[in-house]
């Protein structure tokens, strides 16, 4: 394998939180050291990549991705998902288990890991199902799934409704020191709802989900995590009230973490106006005050990670009356571009943003990805934080096109992606 030297790049290293101009060496697919700007000398026969001042960060680690495969290949396959991922600088992704079949068998965990490697583009970190079939009832074989390589446990897009069952799941997970990831929404309050409660949903005549459905479940589960001592993570948190509870729990020293997704800090409920089903998400897009609360929680460190919450759907799943359309949007390609809006508007520094998209999710999932440390796999993302482009549904890498950011102008674009030192996206990538 050819050695690489990235020259004239701005290195963002989440390990040290530094942002320095310099160069990065890659040997045998692994990171082999950083130099300050102006350093001379290079390994023999190394390929020189001139970054022209662009940013070089670890490849992004996306901790919440739904893939259509297995079971819904018409929406997205692992191969098409991987193409979308690398176009967004993502080289490691955690796959939700609510596929068909659900990832509740050790063999399926191994299959997903293997299929990720086959793409040569990304590493897939499989979530194991928390309950068999992700149906919220019988506990899945958490220990055996973990032995097979499951990084954490969740039922994906549904919360465990039953309080006692959730308690038992957390207690058992504590015993094997496994992380539990919960979809934070009280299922009975949310049932039948398609939009966040408020003036807009009232005008549109849509069945509503109160924002408090999130806080109610988070409050319950924080208490259960405290009872059991388990590590609990809330996915795609979207309300100020929910985040305030998580902030308090962290202050009390509980092992509570959370992530959010770009739609919840870059869009609000107005995006569903005129019944735009591409903006129908779960949890639903919220009021502006909740969006601002998500930004504040990113700034103060309450939110540990930003995930794409990529949810692929076919056009036929979306070209329906709003209530009948499927909830969810693609997010891999736009993850970094939308995330950079937080840097441009001053909510986060660039190293902070990259940490939320690399080291933090990697650590939560026990992965050694998301770093520029010597010896780490050379998973890299080269991007221009200023380059502007317009998101266009129908023109996105990968199979699924249901982006809630359709038509939006983004500032910040991935120029190239490398997986284990191999150029997998951008320019002349194979």
């Amino acid at each position, binding site marked *: 394998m050819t050695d690489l030297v990235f020259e004239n790049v701005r290195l963002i290293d989440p390990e040290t939180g530094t942002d320095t101009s310099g160069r990065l060496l890659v040997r045998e697919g692994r990171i082999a050291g950083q130099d300050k700007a102006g350093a001379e000398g290079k390994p023999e026969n190394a390929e020189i990549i001139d970054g022209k001042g662009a940013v070089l960060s670890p490849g992004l680690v996306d901790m919440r991705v739904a893939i259509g495969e297995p079971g819904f290949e018409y929406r997205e396959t692992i191969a098409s998902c991987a193409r979308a991922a690398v176009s967004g600088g993502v080289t490691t992704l955690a796959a939700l288990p609510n596929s068909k079949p659900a990832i509740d068998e050790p063999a399926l965990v191994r299959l997903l890991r293997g299929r990720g490697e086959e793409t040569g583009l990304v590493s897939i970190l499989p979530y194991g199902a928390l309950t068999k079939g992700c149906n919220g009832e019988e506990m899945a074989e958490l220990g055996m799934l973990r032995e097979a390589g499951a990084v954490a446990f969740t039922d994906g897009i549904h919360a465990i409704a039953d309080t006692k069952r959730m308690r038992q799941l957390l207690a058992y997970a504590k015993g094997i020191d496994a992380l539990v990831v919960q979809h934070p929404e009280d299922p009975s309050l949310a049932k039948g709802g398609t939009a966040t409660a408020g*003036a807009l*949903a*009232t005008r549109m*005549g849509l069945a509503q989900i109160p924002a408090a459905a999130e806080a109610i479940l988070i409050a319950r589960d924080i208490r259960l995590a405290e009872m059991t001592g388990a590590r609990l993570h809330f996915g795609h948190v979207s309300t100020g009230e929910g985040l305030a509870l998580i902030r308090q729990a962290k202050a009390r020293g509980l092992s509570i973490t959370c992530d959010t997704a770009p739609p919840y800090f870059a869009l609000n409920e107005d995006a569903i*106006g005129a*019944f735009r089903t591409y903006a129908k998400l779960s949890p639903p897009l919220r009021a502006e005050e909740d969006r601002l609360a998500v930004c504040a929680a990113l700034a103060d460190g309450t939110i540990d990670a930003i995930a794409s919450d990529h949810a692929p759907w076919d056009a036929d799943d979306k070209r329906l*009356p709003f209530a009948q359309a499927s909830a969810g949007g693609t997010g891999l390609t736009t993850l970094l571009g939308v995330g950079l809006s937080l840097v441009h508007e001053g909510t986060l520094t660039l190293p902070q943003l990259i940490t939320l998209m690399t080291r933090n999710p990697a650590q939560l999932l026990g992965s050694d990805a998301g770093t520029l440390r010597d010896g780490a796999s050379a998973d890299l993302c080269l991007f221009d934080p200023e380059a502007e482009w317009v998101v266009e549904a129908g023109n996105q890498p990968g199979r699924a096109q249901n982006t809630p950011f359709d038509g939006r102008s983004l500032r910040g674009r991935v120029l190239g992606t490398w997986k284990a030192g191999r150029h997998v996206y951008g320019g002349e990538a194979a």
Partner: protein
Amino acid sequence: MADPLARKHHLLGLEGMSAEEITPFLDLAANYALLSRSRTAPRDALRGRTVINMFFEDSTRTRTSFELAGKRLGADVINMTVATSSVNKGETLLDTAATLNAMRCDLLVVRHAQSGAPALLAQKVEASVVNAGDGMHEHPTQALLDALTIKRHLGTLSGLTVAICGDVGHSRVARSNIHLLTAMGSKVRLVGPPTLVPAAMASLGAVSIHHDMESGLRDADVVMTLRLQRERMGAGLVPSAREFFRFYGVDSRRLALAKPGALVMHPGPMNRGVEIASDVADSVQSVIQEQVEMGVAVRMAVLDRLSRMRTAS
């Protein structure tokens, strides 16, 4: 959602429409009401035009009203009843849109159980779409016919106090009436239990919320009641029909709190003894039958105006 008449001349809702945009529909409808009574409606106004009534939800009354309106103006009117039992109605919706385009339909009247379904259809068909009721969203022709009825009796649509009572939260009729009446300069009171009149309804404009009939009906110019669906009891929103009538039914005692001669209205079909007492429904203050008559006139006006806007563009 603003500008519901945008581009292709649809009538998808009244939200965002101004008094200046609403009044021409009412004036034309008033004229058609007179011509219909004298059996002299212009049979050539829609000659050669095709109106298709597509009802994804049963409604004999509204469908018949649109059918009559089209026929009185000389249009070819086709009723398509679409099975509502299929699992994936939306697929039928867009497939049907393609079929309608092929048939060169001019005006498409749509009733659908899902909010926004006519708007979705309007994106895909060449015809002008008239929303004949979509989910909990809007029912613009019902609000127009209510307005015409009120105007005939009270001479104005501004400065009035209109109490809309009962299952307001689930009601497309209530939403369209709120948009229309507030645009015309009247005040709207929404009256019912909090399970049927959620607080967020107050965000719809110049409306006030009342959880007791006494304060809701006092000095009102118009008392409009809405049909209470049986399924509201099953969903735990109201304990029983008799309790609902006891606390929220419009009876003569409560009606006496409104202004003398206040109009009593109901979009039909009525549940006598649930949301409205029989004697009130049949009283001299009731204009419920006239609403039905105005319904035909309003739909004539809507079909005619949209058809002319199409021709002009």
